């Protein structure tokens, strides 16, 4: 019972705190006057804006937003790639050398796209300079890029000019991510997470063996990992390791931290469009999907494998940390895959098929809060498509938020639907066609299909978690997932910006009794169905061959 209670408390905390952060996000991204408490950032921000100069005030359209986004991201990526390829000796106590080129490429792309898929063991390959200068740097800027895109899209949908990328990037960092990470890092520090540049600790175990305990500037790293929906661990074991996630309390606070910014973004959306009812219903929709997923996974993990129930009680404890237990690991897994954080506090590979199914479902939908900023945008895309499909049935050209949904909107919105089939199904099919050696599958059968599909889905959805039995450190995996990472990040961003910019230029129509209202329970229900049919039905055959077949085999 206790894990369920703790899960309820954690999720309730998200609902209760989201509106206040939502108001802050609204004030930040709508250029409202700043509250007294963050005015101390003004000098730094104005200084940086002055340094950016005219670029911070350029014309506001899709191109002028997308171009600096792509250029700056390319530069960030190159910087990280260089650091990873040629790890210098500074802050590198164990003297790690440079990474293999494909691994360095994959790692830098993976962190640049806010995915944090790791095909390496960080504590055995990366020095502190690489961890801070490449990995943690990308964690901050990729989350800020996502947040900027999210609010550019929200601005477009609310009829405002989509804004300026440099300004949004800067303000995402200075007003949201850096202060929030500092606060969370402080809490983690107090809870026992290390924050040091000292080399690993050499200890002698009870058996008398020598062991190295990896440590480093983990507290801040951990904070942006959760808040920025990054998910990449400082240590390979990620949040299962006591240095990243020491106590039950840090576990719950970290779960909250994954959810809070996306939930607040949704709340801010309501403030932007001046219709809190609309945003609350969307929040209820997403929260409902999350709660269902959490319920399924927690129940499945708590019940454990029916074939083992005669010998083992206490649920599915394979690949779990006992300080969290089976059920709360289920909660974490669903939240982490839903929010595109991808951090793990237990092995998803060893989770029950239903948990894996829920996780895959989250990856395919990408809106159960979804990525930093982009999840919100995806939700708007699905709402737009729901309006288009059902809105015709009231006998008018469908309208969303007072604007007509016409061909350009449908083109951009439905392009987003094509990303996953292109970047998940095609590479997964190629990999499986290449045989088990190419795929590096550790468990044959249906689970092997789950492993391969999960890896690409996690890459294309910019999540980063994985079914870790897979031997994914090969050049094939590094290069193909890199493609999925890039395709799953920048193509949707371009489509979303074009969608939002085109949408805002349409005339606003006054609502009448003949207009389909989107802020009703009925429409929210319709959106769920459209979401499931358009977002997940495509993957039903693959899911059926993977986790569903596995679950049915276990059950029978």
């Amino acid at each position, binding site marked *: 019972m206790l894990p369920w209670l703790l899960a309820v408390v954690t999720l309730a905390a998200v609902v209760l705190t989201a509106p206040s952060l939502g108001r802050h996000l609204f004030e930040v991204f709508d250029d409202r006057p700043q509250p007294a408490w963050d005015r101390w950032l003004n000098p730094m921000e104005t200084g940086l804006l002055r340094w950016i100069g005219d670029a911070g005030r350029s014309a506001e359209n899709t191109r002028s937003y997308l171009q600096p986004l792509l250029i700056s991201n390319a530069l960030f990526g190159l910087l990280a790639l260089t650091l990873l390829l040629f790890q210098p000796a500074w802050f590198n106590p164990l003297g790690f050398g440079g990474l293999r080129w494909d691994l360095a490429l994959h790692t830098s792309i993976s962190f640049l796209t806010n995915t944090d898929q790791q095909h390496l063991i960080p504590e055995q390959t990366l020095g502190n300079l690489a961890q801070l200068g490449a990995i943690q740097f990308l964690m901050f800027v990729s989350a800020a890029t996502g947040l900027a895109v999210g609010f550019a899209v929200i601005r477009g949908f609310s009829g405002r000019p989509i804004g300026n990328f440099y300004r949004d990037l800067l303000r995402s960092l200075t007003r949201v991510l850096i202060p929030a990470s500092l606060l969370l890092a402080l809490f983690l520090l107090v809870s026992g997470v290390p924050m040091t540049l000292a080399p690993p600790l050499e200890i002698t175990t009870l058996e008398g063996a020598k062991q190295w305990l990896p440590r480093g500037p983990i507290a801040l790293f951990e904070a942006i990992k959760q808040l920025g929906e990054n998910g990449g661990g400082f240590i390979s074991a990620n949040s299962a390791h006591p240095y990243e996630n020491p106590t039950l309390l840090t576990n719950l606070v970290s779960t909250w931290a994954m959810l809070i910014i996306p939930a607040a973004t949704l709340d801010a959306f309501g403030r932007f469009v001046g219709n809190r009812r609309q945003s609350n219903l969307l929040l209820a929709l997403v929260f409902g999907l999350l709660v269902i997923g959490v319920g399924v996974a927690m129940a499945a993990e708590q019940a454990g494998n029916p074939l083992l129930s005669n010998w083992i009680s206490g649920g599915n404890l394979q690949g779990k940390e006992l300080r969290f237990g089976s059920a709360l690991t289920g909660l974490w897994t669903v939240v982490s895959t839903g929010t595109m954080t991808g951090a793990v506090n237990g092995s998803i590979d060893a989770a029950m098929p239903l948990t894996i199914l829920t996780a895959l479902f989250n990856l395919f939908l990408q809106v159960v809060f979804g990525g930093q900023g982009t999840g919100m945008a995806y939700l708007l895309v699905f709402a737009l498509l729901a309006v288009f499909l059902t809105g015709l049935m009231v006998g008018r050209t469908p309208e969303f938020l007072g604007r007509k949904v016409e*061909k350009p909107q449908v083109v951009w919105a439905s392009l987003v639907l094509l990303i996953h089939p292109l970047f998940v199904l095609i590479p997964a099919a190629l990999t499986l066609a290449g045989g088990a050696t190419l795929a590096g599958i550790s468990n044959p059968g249906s689970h092997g299909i789950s492993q391969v599909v999960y890896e690409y889905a996690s890459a294309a959805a910019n999540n980063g978690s994985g079914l870790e039995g897979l031997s994914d450190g090969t050049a094939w995996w590094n290069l193909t997932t890199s493609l999925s990472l890039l395709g799953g990040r920048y193509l949707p961003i371009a489509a979303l910006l074009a969608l939002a910019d085109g949408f805002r230029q349409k005339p606003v129509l006054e609502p009448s009794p003949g207009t389909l209202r989107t802020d009703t329970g009925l429409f929210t229900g319709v959106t769920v169905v459209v979401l499931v049919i358009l977002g997940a039905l495509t993957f039903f055959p693959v899911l059926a061959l993977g986790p569903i077949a596995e679950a049915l085999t276990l059950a029978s």
Partner: protein
Amino acid sequence: MARFLHIRFWLPLLLVAGTLLLAPLFRSSQPPLQSHALALLLCGTAALSAYLFAVIAQPEKF
């Protein structure tokens, strides 16, 4: 019309070229006729996919 003449000319050429290129991939598991047929099927699917992209890009023309 000129555009269609183009397609009529290029499409079979591309299909044949693709088939010949891809057929060796299936040679290990299939006899020659089947491996060529499979390669042609794959190319045809790709062409159909390209056609659908064309529709998405310029729905007015269809």
